[in-house]
């Protein structure tokens, strides 16, 4: 299976690998997938509380090349977005950007799930 150059670049030089302090109130963490399924994604966002903008995003992913590239791309896209903008990221945007083959579309779905789950975690933490 030949992957696109963009995908390979994200795989070889993943952006924003790391861990944010999940105890912090302005950090939302999404952990999706399962080891039995062959992919687990953890995506974290840190929100600037004054502007409501995502100022940092980090990921760690256990999975195939497409899963790693999808999460790396997602973190890049998240930075600088508002929560509402972030929530509108669609998995098909990732599919198109990375030219994912059909058997790898689930990797992009997982990335979208991870974004939504991180947002939900942030919102629950900050619910008044």
């Amino acid at each position, binding site marked *: 299976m030949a992957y696109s150059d963009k995908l390979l670049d994200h795989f070889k030089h993943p952006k924003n690998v790391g861990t944010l302090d999940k105890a912090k109130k302005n950090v939302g963490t999404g952990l999706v*997938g*399962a*080891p*039995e399924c*062959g992919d*687990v994604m953890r995506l974290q966002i840190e929100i600037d509380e004054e502007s409501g903008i995502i100022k940092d995003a980090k990921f*760690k992913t256990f*999975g*195939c090349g497409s899963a790693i590239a999808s999460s790396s791309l997602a973190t890049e896209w998240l930075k600088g977005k508002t929560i509402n903008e972030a929530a509108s990221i669609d998995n098909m945007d990732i599919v198109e950007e990375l030219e994912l083959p059909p058997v790898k579309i689930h990797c992009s779905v997982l990335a979208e799930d991870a974004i939504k789950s991180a947002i939900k975690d942030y919102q629950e933490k900050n619910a008044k």
Partner: protein
Amino acid sequence: MKNNQLIYLDNSATTPCDPRVVEAMVPYFSQHFGNAASRNHSFGWAAEGAVDKARKQIADLIGADPREIIFTSGATEADNLAIKGVAEMYKRKGNHIITAETEHKAVLDTCKALEKEGYEVTYLKVSRQGLVDLAELEAAIKPTTILVSLMFANNEIGVVQPMKAISDICVKHEVLFMSDATQAVGKLPINVRELGIHLMAFSAHKMYGPKGVGVLYVSRKSPRVKVTAQMDGGGHERGMRSGTLNVPGIVGFGKAAELCQQEMEAEATRLSKLRDKLETELMKVEEVVFNGHPEFRMPHLTNLSFKHVEGEGLMMTFNENIALSSGSACTSASLEPSYVLKALGLGDDLAHSSLRMSLGRFTTEEEVDFAIKAIRDGVNHMRSLSPIWEMYQEGIDLDAVEWSEH
């Protein structure tokens, strides 16, 4: 080692054709192109003579009579012919077949096809190391059992089943014993008479011969076995397999068999040493699980699971330089992780994390050294990206985590 060099550690998938094999084949394309079934002119005689020679070379390798060698298009066809052919030929005796969960798809799917036609199939479980339980095998035999089909060596983990002991049980109960020996022929000393194997399938391309040619060995005496042909036509190969013989392929197969016979012992010694080095060095990495049997195994293969790393992703870190296989779902057409590893009792997570490395005649120590480093680096890199590796290091019990399965 040059950066653009490709290292092939996937010899259980296929082997390169030995140049000496290619050399033997070349005259049989344009010069001696005759049909081996043309009985009345010299073109046919030349082809027939070449096929006879190859038949003997192959028979000698496995301790058979040349008349017991049936040429096919490959091991898959030979497996089909053996199992379906026996099922049809002996259906008045019974309709029960015994095989194992870790067999190749060519055997398993053939058995499944027979189940649809009303045959009954028992799929034996295997131990954590991949061996069938002989007592379980014997207990599974019934008056209606006509065939036991168990592979010689497994393609994913290289475990070697106790052929003689299996045969003794089959003979005691007057059941035919067939073995898919694709991974073993040419690499282990095999004598079908001494081992008591009644039918045996194997193929040229796993032993440095060409693709597209295989053999079914069918015992001619004690017992005299017959299989019903699965293809209609000119009645070639004693009526068991019609179709014009692939003369260049067969000549190559013969040459490959001869070379294996000459070089097997030295090659096995050399490869097991290299394999042990590869395995020992990779086992030094933290949290690695060995898959297979430490003793009853092929000399050229190792299968390891690198915990908390997914196999396809891991392979992508070095697949510009190294070719090997993974039991990860992402590398299979079915999107399911390896059923062989699962049959050993491995969880899906460990199956996803497995690599199979299989060395061959042309593997050098320099290549193994390069691979050790590249695989280690790959594992470290992938672990630095892996959230479950981080969780494991923090002492979190991964089994207790509630994962969102998808």
